[in-house]
């Protein structure tokens, strides 16, 4: 059986989970992996549940949606509730502690990180929480090198916020 890793990044619209998934996908593609990224969000641009999915495979990727994931990133409580049942028993759960009221009882490996809080302290706003999360995800999973991730971030985010985004990405790695 070909090796396949499936990731769900969930949060609310405006938290940048779609962009985060695209950057992760782009970096994986740069490293030559077969990768597919999809997204879904509610009709409202902000506030409703948003999710980004990334599938990585040694083989050609068939079905484009994630059924059971190996890695779940929950950027808020609602996403955690909505997607936890899709996480495999031997999966990895990454939680933004700031936005999650309680950590569920689960057998999976859990990383609780105060992402939004750290971001607010550093930048005075939560805008770069998605990059900080990507930093933590990169360090925890080692799916892709930090250098390639930085390259992908450089290509995608606007020039005027590039430094802040890169700093947030770096800080995310330090939090682990």
């Amino acid at each position, binding site marked *: 059986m070909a090796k396949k890793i499936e990731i769900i990044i969930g949060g609310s619209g405006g938290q940048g989970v779609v962009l985060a998934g695209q950057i992760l996908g782009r970096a994986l*593609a740069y490293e030559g992996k077969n990768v597919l990224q999809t997204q879904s969000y509610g009709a409202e641009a902000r506030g409703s549940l948003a999710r980004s999915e990334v599938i990585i495979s040694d083989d050609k990727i068939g*079905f484009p*949606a994630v059924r059971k994931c190996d890695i779940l990133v929950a950027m808020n409580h609602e996403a955690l509730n909505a997607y936890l049942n899709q996480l495999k028993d031997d999966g990895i759960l990454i939680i933004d502690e700031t936005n999650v009221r309680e950590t569920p009882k689960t057998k999976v490996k859990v990383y609780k990180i105060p992402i939004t809080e750290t971001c607010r302290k550093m930048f005075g706003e939560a805008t770069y929480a998605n990059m900080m999360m990507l930093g933590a995800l990169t360090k925890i999973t080692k799916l892709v090198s930090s250098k390639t991730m930085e390259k992908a971030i450089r290509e995608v985010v606007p020039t005027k916020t590039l430094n802040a985004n890169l700093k947030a990405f770096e800080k995310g790695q330090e939090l682990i």
Partner: protein
Amino acid sequence: MNQKRVILEGSHFMNGDIACAEGAIAAGCRFFAGYPITPATEIAEHLAQRMLEVGGIYVQMEDEIASMAAVIGASYAGLKAMTATSGPGFSLMQENIGLAVMTEAPCVIVDVMRGGPSTGQPTLPGQQDVMQAKWGSHGDYEIIALAPSSVQEMFNLTIEAFNLSETYRVPAIVLADEVVGHMWEKVAIPPAQKIKIVNRKKANAPSEAYAPFMPDDDLVPPMACFGEGYSFHATGLTHDEHGYPQTSSSEVQQKLVKRLCDKIRKNADKIVRVEEVLLSDADIVVVAYGIVARAALSAVRKARAEGIKAGLLRPITLWPFPENHVAKIAQQTKAIVVPEMNCGQLVREVERAAKETPVTFLSKLGEEPHTPMEIFEAIRRNS
């Protein structure tokens, strides 16, 4: 002018809509007229910038009726021209698609299918425009429609659509779906010299002897474009080889309409493209296209792993329909399964070609495409 690269040779991470737009640029398309609509908006958005970079023209029109009209005009002015839309816009374009058929204007229409009827479900995938692509405009005609199932194919088949459209002087439709349009995957763009480009046959008769609708042996007339020194008439009315209306002659009507159909029908073997997976010993064959074909492939692999001899026939051209391929497979196999994101469209063509072989239809509406498990269960039930 800002001179940017025309062909973005290299490896990229793109969504299907952007890959389609880049395929158009690579094919030589230099005119886009459209009205943005989910889930095809990113095609327009991307081309709004890229057309200017490569010296082309981008026009956001007032609606889809005008978009299609502008595309025909640009084609007759000598440019490769395209529009992109989804269901509601595709409906509005139908009248002028008929005009493009009748005036034999090469052009490409991209329809990124969402859930219908009417405005339906803008952000969800569908395969509900398959019959509309074939029969949407009035009168008898044949058309070409290609169904991509990956982001790479959004690039490749958009080029192919231009090539076929230029070869046969017929509108070619890229019939994609929301998932293929919006998902992101790796895309390899080859160097320019490795991309096959076909351009329409140009008129070479002297102006006074030129008959704009006089076909060659392949039933396709060479094309003079406006501004090339030829004066001629092109009309939606039934016309003779000189382009002049003959609205009460049965002979002219028969000759013209039959030729418009025959130039596709008689060349169908050259136009039809399919992907065949594990068919040689298959007892049960899944016929699936677009994004559904990917779940079907996963299902076929799973069935094989469990000892069921399953195979996949993926029509890449939906129109002309690959009926010879289906007919041949139907003679060798015991059963056929057709999953579609509609209430049963291409399955009717499959049934027609399969004759006695039993065909099971698997419908899915209003959410994600069929899962591999759903198709696998259908394979198991019918094997």
